[in-house]
């Protein structure tokens, strides 16, 4: 199984922390709640797009946009005027999607391997989220 680039994971976590989690309400289930919804839904999409034999490049961009759209939706917005926010999240999403797609290519669509990879990314993101919550609790 391919592993996800650690720098990318860190960058993605930072993007979500800065532009998504910080704008979410205080309540929420860390493991199954809205915190990971943009990524999980995106991961789900990538698998379906791969299975439908769509184009990797175009669908990676789309997956990034989808993740960003879900972030906006999760924070009760339709648009943002912050282009850095849009770039940070959608680029993280695109790069993650691209690596996940490559994993699917390598494993020839092995769902178990794919789920393992998704779980690995989710765990890393949750770790970032936990650190963020901890830091937030200290500063407040």
């Amino acid at each position, binding site marked *: 199984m391919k592993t996800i680039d650690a720098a990318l994971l860190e960058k993605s976590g930072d993007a979500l922390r800065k532009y998504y989690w910080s704008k979410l309400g205080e309540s929420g289930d860390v493991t199954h709640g809205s915190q990971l919804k943009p990524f999980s839904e995106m991961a789900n999409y990538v698998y379906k797009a791969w299975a439908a034999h769509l184009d990797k490049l175009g*669908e990676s961009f789309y997956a990034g946009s989808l993740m960003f759209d879900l972030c906006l939706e999760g924070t009760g917005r339709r648009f*943002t005027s912050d282009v850095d926010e*849009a770039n940070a999240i959608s680029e993280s999403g695109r790069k993650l999607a691209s690596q996940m797609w490559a994993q699917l290519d390598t494993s020839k669509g092995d769902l178990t391997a794919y789920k393992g990879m998704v779980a690995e990314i989710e765990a890393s993101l949750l770790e970032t989220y936990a650190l963020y919550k901890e830091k937030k609790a200290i500063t407040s």
Partner: protein
Amino acid sequence: MKKSRKVILVTVPLMALILFSAFTQLSGSSIFPSASAEDSSVRIIEIRAFQFGWDPEVIIIDAGEKVIFRVEGDKVVAHGFYIDGQDFQMYIPPLETVDVGPMVFNTPGKVKIRCSVTCGPLHPFMVADIIVEPNYPYFAFLISSIAVGGITVLYVKRGPKKKMLGVPLDKEIDLLKIRVIGPILKKLLQWRGIHFALILPNIVVFMIVLSSGFFGNPTGNLNFSVAVVWILWLTAVEFMILFLGRTWCTICPLPAFGEWLARRRIYSMPYLRKPFSLGLKFPKSLNNMWGSGLGFLGISLVVPWLVTRPWVSSMLFAALIVLGVGTTLLFTRRYFCRVICPANSYIGYHANISFFAVRSKDKSICDKHIAKECLRGGPKGHACPWVTPYPGGLSENTWCGQCYECLKSCPLDTMTVKYRMIGQEIDEMAVKSKKRFGMAWTGFIRFNLGIFYELVFFGSFWFLKDWGNMGINFGANLFSVNLLSPTSQAFMNWVLWALIVAGVSLVIYPAVFYGFSSLARRVAGDTTLSTKNDVFVPFSYALAPYGLFVWLAFTFNLVLVNWAYPISRFADPMGWAWNSSPLMPIEGMMFAWSPIVPDMLPYIVIPIVLLGLALAINSTYNIASKLFGDHSKAFKSTAVMSVLHTAMALVFVWIIIG
């Protein structure tokens, strides 16, 4: 400034003379004063009616002369005798001669004799000219045209920067920010169902067009498919281009079927973007304006059949739907609209000078944005179906079909709808696209056909109509002409027509334009630029406003004279003469054919064309300023090009009132 004052001193009295003529035209002539045909002071004018003209086609009368028209009827069908500005219509039965008059024409100028009884396919265009001498208005308009050209050249001599006829070009209104209306409009445009909601009623109308064309009355002005499409729609589209850009493309039903099929849904977004299409790559060499521009010209070769034979119109529309569906199934996106649809050529070309535009609020944000959903599509909106190179960076309307997908897909909310002055971007666009010869030729085709149609359809030269109609001299068999088996003489006449239409639009006028462009470059004294590669195409963009205003003038003529035909067809689309209905009291018509101010038409349409002339000269200056980067060179080249533009205005004036 002194010269400008002198020109104004000449022009103002001229305009006053034109206005005076216009007002006196209202009470221009008296009909049926007490006199008879035996009265020696009365001139008898013999005129013969036939399908679709009058013989003689031009009658010259002295102002104040008392005349009687001895109208000889057709051998085949009845006609009506109507003179612009007169309150009568005379029925001319077949094989009978009717005296009309005596009457006196007091006001100099030109009025038209028209047929007022539906007599066959080309009936609405059966006209003759009465020239009341001395034709002062003609000369006044000729001098006015030269004056308008001259004043505009003097105006640009002052070096107005980023202005169009005195109006600053950098001012614009963001329509989505207007209080109350803006947010509502924004919500509507970002609503996924808006496209479908706008197209749906149009599809109903389109079904009526198709069915009436195939199954309705074979006479054009009595059939919905011809009367509504080629009178109302044509007029509406020209006005839409000026005020609402490519709004027709927003609501056009032709590509909708293919697009819905390819997207597998009517308006919602699919979860997976897997179109029902082969997704072939469109050939790059064909991805330009040549296809639709030549398509428009191709239609012009058969335009007398198209706008008068319902089944020909319906065949064209059905073929366009099949092409629309087929193209989308092969190439996914709207290549049909981009390169095949004949209407795209002129809507796209002229929309560049429209007041209306879909643009980015801030291009720097769009450039910085990596995902560019407007280009690639996103969860809320499809990728630009028009394959616009990059909607966020749009600076021309040529390829923007105003589908508003970019407004829906952009998460940064940077796309908006703007209202700006005519010609805001024409200079930059012209200079950026020096090699887009397809655009240049689209401009030539449109501009020339606008003037040519004025001559053919509203001019008295019946033989031109006959040639295009594939008829024979004097239209002996025109009523029932079988287009698929014409006589050899009729076919040769049509070949002559096709040669004129294609020759003028594709060769003669472009050659003259090239000559003027070359001269303009030489007079400007620029040796660094070449006529072919740098000057010719950019200068041709001045025809975008000019051509549109020529067509606006043409449609004014069309709709003000023939408004009763399309309006009546809403009550009886098939033209099956439901005249027993109280809705259709007059021979299958809801309203009697009654032109609106027909004798005033020259005073309406010529100023429209002269406004187009002024816009063309100012556009040329703006383009030249950008091209040469020097006021003196720009002015000199504009002065040369203005001679050609003014000459074309004189041709138009001659057709209308000469």
